[in-house]
């Protein structure tokens, strides 16, 4: 069969080179590149690749859109999405348009080769099958009443010869075989035939047709075949079970029978089954124990609500610099914010008190008298909704978990450490915005601060933060 066409669509030249280098080592592929989704579509229309390695994030048109259009026009093309580590929403969408195979970045060379080889093998069988099945007649000269499926091996190299051998052994291995069956000799005969064909540079394929009782193994050559003496002698052993016709050699073999258990051996089988059952039971028990063990380790998830997500990812079309912002601010409000300097001391002092005396009351005091004072001042600024929300949420969390945390010395230590850092972050925020007025964007810290508060709550609460896989690392 001709080479399979592989298209690599990626906007990064480095990535294309890496993928090309990986694929070049594979035999039987012709490779072309596309630099974006649009070009991938154009090349697909003119060149019709069998497989596309499609990067998802590309300029002009991304990999998702391009795949959608390509799949509509060419449903048979196999698209492999090359993408960041697991994003279930993207994968669900890709699945809807018929893309189910992934290569995750950073790429694993061996895995890519394995996937491509498996897909190629499957494609070759399908494409070969299509060609042959379209004739709608049996290829073997023995029996035209065959079942509708065929197994086809394109004999390209030693590996495909082995695949055929393996397939045949698989059919007979461990099953009851009638004494006259010559399947092992058939493996040898076909091996000799393949060697003969290889020597003569022929392209060969083996097509296996089946009736309910028999296999018909046909080897097809490009040209009329003249058997070598040795092969001819071996085939004679098959008597009427083999036919040579121009460019085909066909052997028919009885299929293996299901093993029939002889009556006196039944007790032995029952014993064996009972032994297996006990083994399965004990395995089940140990699996269950393992699951229980791992469940203990699984943390709960701190789900990010949709309003929180909005605040986290809020974007401001026009960036306001600190200098512009402060110049517009009323004197009273600015004074209130500048007054917060005194609360820095209160923040540190209260944390010091909690360290010495970690009572529930001290935690509640921190929430009410430190955090909430901050919230009131920030609320007057209108602009900093995310900051105010973050501190309010932290305050509520402190009160709710005061009892539990106050009884856990490890958590007290951790919470105090994190709150000290958070306090310094707030001080630095006030300095950059209201005193130094040196930031080009007054919202530079809002989301990050909010995210830190969320993270602190999750750490103290022994939870994972999760936003529908949004926080997976996305590799480029």
């Amino acid at each position, binding site marked *: 069969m001709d080479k399979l066409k592989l298209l690599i669509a990626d906007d*990064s030249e480095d990535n294309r080179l890496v993928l090309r280098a990986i694929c070049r080592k594979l035999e039987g592929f012709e490779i072309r590149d596309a630099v974006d989704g649009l070009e991938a579509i154009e090349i697909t229309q003119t060149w019709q690749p069998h497989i596309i390695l499609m990067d998802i*994030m590309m*300029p002009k048109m991304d990999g998702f859109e391009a795949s959608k259009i390509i799949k509509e026009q060419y449903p048979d093309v196999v698209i492999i999405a090359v993408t*960041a*580590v697991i994003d279930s929403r993207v994968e669900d969408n890709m699945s809807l348009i018929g893309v189910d195979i992934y290569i995750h970045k*950073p790429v694993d060379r061996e895995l890519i080769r394995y996937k491509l080889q498996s897909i190629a093998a499957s494609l070759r069988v399908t494409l070969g099958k299509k060609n042959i099945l379209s004739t709608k007649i049996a290829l073997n000269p023995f029996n035209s009443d065959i079942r509708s499926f065929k197994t086809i091996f394109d004999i390209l190299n030693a590996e495909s010869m082995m695949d055929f051998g393996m397939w045949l052994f698989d059919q007979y291995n461990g099953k009851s075989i009638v004494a006259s069956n010559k399947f092992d000799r058939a493996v040898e005969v076909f091996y000799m035939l393949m060697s003969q064909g290889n020597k003569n540079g022929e392209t060969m394929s083996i097509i296996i047709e089946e009736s309910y009782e028999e296999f018909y193994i046909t080897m097809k050559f490009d040209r009329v075949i003249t058997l070598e003496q040795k092969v001819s002698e071996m085939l004679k052993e098959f008597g009427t079970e083999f036919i040579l016709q121009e460019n085909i050699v066909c052997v028919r073999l009885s299929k293996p029978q299901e093993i029939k258990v002889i009556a006196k051996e039944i007790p032995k089988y029952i014993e064996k089954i009972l032994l297996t059952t006990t083994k399965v039971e004990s395995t089940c028990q140990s699996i269950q124990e393992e699951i229980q063990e791992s469940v203990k380790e699984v943390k709960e998830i701190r789900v*990010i609500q949709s309003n929180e997500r909005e605040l*986290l*990812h809020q*974007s401001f079309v026009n960036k306001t610099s600190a200098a512009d912002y402060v110049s517009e601010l009323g004197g009273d409000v600015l004074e209130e914010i500048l007054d917060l300097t005194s609360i820095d001391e209160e923040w540190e002092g209260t944390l010091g008190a909690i360290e010495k005396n970690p009572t529930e009351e001290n935690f509640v005091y921190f929430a009410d008298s430190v955090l909430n004072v901050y919230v009131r001042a920030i609320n007057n600024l209108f602009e900093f909704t995310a900051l105010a929300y973050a501190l309010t949420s932290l305050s509520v969390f402190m009160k709710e978990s005061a009892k539990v945390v106050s009884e856990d010395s490890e958590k007290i230590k*951790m919470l105090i*450490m*994190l709150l000290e*850092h*958070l306090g*310094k*972050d707030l001080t*630095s925020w006030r300095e*950059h915005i209201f005193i130094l007025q*040196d*930031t080009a*964007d007054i*919202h*530079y*810290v809002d*989301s*990050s*601060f*909010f*995210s*830190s*508060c*969320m*993270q*602190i709550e*999750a*750490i103290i609460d022994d939870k*994972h*933060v*999760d*936003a529908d896989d*949004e*926080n*997976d*690392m*996305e*590799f*480029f």
Partner: protein
Amino acid sequence: MAKRVIIVDDSRAVIATAELALEEMINSGTIEFKSYLNPMDLLGALQSGSENYDLLISDVNMPQLNGLDLARAIKADDRYKNKPLIILTTESSNDLKMLGKEIGVTGWMVKPFSDDKLVKSLKMILGV
């Protein structure tokens, strides 16, 4: 030998939470952890050659220098061009990610981050 991981973020709380997430890798000697609050300090140290790293984690929105500008400056330097640099930010817009990709950053992780996912990604990048 321990891999040197540097984080640059103007928030002390973010650095502290990242350090807690990586605690096990730090304690086991798999990585050594260094942090910078000011990207200009890091850039200066890298340019003078007094600092080096195996993996750099950078925030985007920092008052002194945007993390993507920092990445661009670092990636222009042959000494650091091929070293992994990941962005850890609350920013999740595709435009910014695309810009990061163009600059040559290795990966993008959105805050708040999951400890496990950060550790898993670091191990994968550092091959440890």
